[in-house]
């Protein structure tokens, strides 16, 4: 029995990751930022697990366009996988649906669609409100978005401590330890479209919901409201 066991011990070893035959995919990060009117686009390849990742990961020379709200805007290669508007700026309208299409030089194509959420309106706390440090902070807002997905962030000025909560309700409590130190804090409540919400929640899952045809990543949109609060 021992001989058989030793024979078995000679077998085995680490996984042969090449056996999975993974073909790199187009990795898209495209986000519509309502408050600044920006469109952030990164276009890269993914890599095999054991591949060395090059300094310049970008896909060059792709044709990138976004259609929506009666516009069609082209984005040009800025190098390093960055794409930006060359002339006409995409106008972002709450409730409007945008369609992203990408064609890369080797013929692969990617398409995705997202809807710009309406910015939420913070009800509490009030701007410049003074609160006690190390006390719970109830945060309440209104939203007109049909899909209520939110990201709430608070960040101190001096301590630069940042805390974030994802929620699908229009109220949350910031726990006392997030506001433990006397400081000036910036509180932001962002409405997220379904794509970006799922991306943030599920990108580390085994089979994430990418909402992108022909690639991985996200095409999403956010719009936020903010307040300054003073913890004493």
């Amino acid at each position: 029995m021992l001989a058989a066991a030793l024979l078995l011990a000679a077998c085995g070893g680490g996984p042969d990751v090449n056996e999975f035959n993974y073909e790199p995919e187009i990795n898209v990060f495209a986000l519509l930022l309502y408050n600044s009117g920006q469109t952030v686009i990164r276009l890269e390849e993914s890599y095999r697990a054991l591949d060395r990742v090059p300094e310049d990961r970008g896909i060059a020379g792709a044709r990138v366009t976004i259609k929506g709200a009666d516009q069609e805007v082209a984005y040009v290669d800025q190098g390093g996988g960055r794409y930006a508007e060359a002339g006409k700026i995409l106008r972002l309208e709450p409730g409007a649906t945008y369609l992203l299409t990408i064609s890369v030089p080797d013929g692969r194509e990617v398409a995705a669609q997202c809807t710009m959420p309406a910015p939420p309106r913070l009800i509490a706390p009030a701007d410049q409100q003074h609160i006690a440090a190390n006390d719970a902070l109830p945060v309440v807002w209104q939203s007109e978005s049909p899909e209520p997905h939110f990201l709430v962030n608070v960040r101190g000025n001096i301590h630069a401590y940042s805390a974030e909560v994802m929620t699908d309700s229009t109220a949350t409590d910031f726990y006392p330890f997030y506001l433990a130190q006397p400081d000036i804090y910036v509180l932001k409540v962002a409405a997220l479209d379904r794509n970006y919400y799922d991306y943030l929640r599920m990108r580390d899952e085994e089979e994430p919901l990418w909402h992108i045809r022909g690639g991985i990543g996200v095409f999403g949109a956010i719009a936020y409201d903010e307040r300054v609060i003073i913890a004493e």
Partner: protein
Amino acid sequence: MLKKNAEMAAILLLAALLLAPPPGGRASAGDKWASISGFVRDASNGEPLPYANVYLVGTNLGTLTSLRGYFVIPHLAEGRYLFTVSLLGYQRWQSEVQLHAGADSVLTVHLTPSTIEMGEVTKTAQRERFEREVHISTVALTMRQLQVVPMLAEADVFRTLQLLPGVVSRSDFSSQLYVRGGSPDQNLVLLDGVSVYNPFHLGGVFSTFNVDAIKELEFLSGGFPVEYGGRLSSVLAVTNREGNVKSYRGSGSLSLLSVRGLAEGPLPSGSFLIAARRTYFDQVFKHTRYAFPYYFYDLQGKINLDLSQRHRLTLSGFYGDDVLDFSAEGEDESEVDVDLNWVWGNRTTSLIWRWIIRPDLFSETILSRSRFDNDLDATVEGSGTANLMLDNRINDYSAKADVTYLGLRGHGIKLGFSWSDLDFRYGIAIDDYRLFSYTARPALLALYLQDHWQLRARLQLNSGVRLEHYSLGNRWSLSPRLGLQYQIAANLALKASYGQYTQYLTTVASDEENFSLMDLWLPISKNYRPQTARHYVAGGEWWLPHDLILTMEGYYKTFAGLLDLNEKGIASDPTDDYFVAEGTARGLELLLKRQTGPLQGWLGYSWCLTKRRTAEHTYYPKYDRRHTFHAVLNRRLGRNWTLGVVFSYGSGMPYTPIPGKYMAYEWRLDRNELSGHLVDRPGAKNSARFPLYHRMDVSLRREGHLFGISATPYLQIINLYNRKNVFYYFWDHDANPSRLTTVSMFPLLPTLGVDFAF
């Protein structure tokens, strides 16, 4: 429709309960039949002996003693008989008895342990159980059998069960049981009839039962009868010893893991037993730089009182905790001080009343409380102070009662009910601020009726029905069960069983977790249907020459409504807390065992195929091990030495491969900037398999005496040839190219210890 049927069945069952034979005295004087009843006990300590073979020589009349050592042979013609009792490991007992019509003869038989575990006597006892009971998918193990299997540091119930066909272990670090395609939370674990919710120490590395106190354990891996419910896959019923009724005795053990002690002795009209175990590394290294701030302990006790020949009360308790008590002071002002006290463990208390109403009618009533606590108190002190408190608790208050009636010729009827009030309270607070709070208090009621029917001399049928009501969502379920045994030849029996099972509790566990400190149990909310399963089992048992017994079983199981935690569920949507899955498991098991002679043990092989289906995909669960083989052998070497060898082989289990990686970007809301880092690009769920698992453990024990007391030192070597079995793979994408690390399971581990008794 189903609900209506269930309600009708409830009414019928209640009517049956009410119409059950009234408690009363003996059989009427005019009864033409005689009977013989009583108890079989161990002559050395007075402990009741279960499964002893009790029969009348020259007839085919006989029975087996119950778990409490009770027997009754009813419907006997008046006359003189040669009454015989035999049991594996004991000398046969025989006596002539004169039975009179209309009278019951009561006997208490004391069997003397035999020094040689072989011969005709033991074969007969084994065979009688084989011939008289429908016990498909059932394995019974004694303390002695548990003690001789080589284990890490000391004997362990769950790790021994992991060596049986149909049971899969996910890793060396876990003693959890995956039974015939079921997950660990589908196993009902009972200690003296009381549910234990987290029967593990150190996150599952060790099980919570101290083998010194165990009399017997019965493991039912499928098709279990109606007296058990609330779980889908298996039942583990652990019965503790009752204590020596003849003299005061003690025993102890010192292993590299723990120190154990046991005391037992007689009480007026009864006995007591108390057993304790504690790890000691924390004390040994307390004042060194290698301080080990963790320990666990178990304490269990039992008191038995015979109020009369017919009434017995048993009070038993189990208390076990894991304790992590840790303090660290920062070396300077920039570092924080940490003070952590974390205690988690089980407490069970039960009061059992056994009443022999008539020789052929007896009842058992259990009132119990099972509690699991998980309390953490952590304080971090730096420029400020933060305190984290976890306060998690399960309280299970239960009442069970059953009545067994043997007065109908050819039938053994059991009628019972159980009621449980389950109280779940989970909470997390930081600085007295309640971050999270959960409470639920479902009640579970079950009524069951079972009949063991000797249809023909060679044909037995076990049939029953269990009706359950679960208060959350007001759900009813009706679970029929059926077991059949046909003695096709003197040495060959064919068996089959069918059963439906319903489970109302689940554990919060991610499918991808490699290690879990404890199970977090939750009742299924009214938004989900209870989990259900059906078992179809068929097989045979064949008695071969040289005391070899070959068992072969095939099974097919279907699962519905299985719940996998959806960690990314939306908080305010109570309907997406879980992914709901269906599943199937099919398998074939072979077990060749020998329990007599100088070479004992078993060879077990199982083939199993388990699949899960959700709305999105079909996959093999992480414990789907296709081929498993175990050899568990004990060889007596001369008079005092015993060599134990365990060899385990398993085909690779599934895992989710990481064939790629990509930059995951995120817009930082606080800084209005883009950030990103390389992350895994996982492949399809559980689409790859780890390499083969195999391991050999050996042990050598020597029975002897030291300073006048019985002492058995032992040496054990785990993973004799230091096989590096893969636990998991870890990718480090900070390196470029990424680095793959293989984390292995147990390396070669020698351990030693000594058992002593006085």
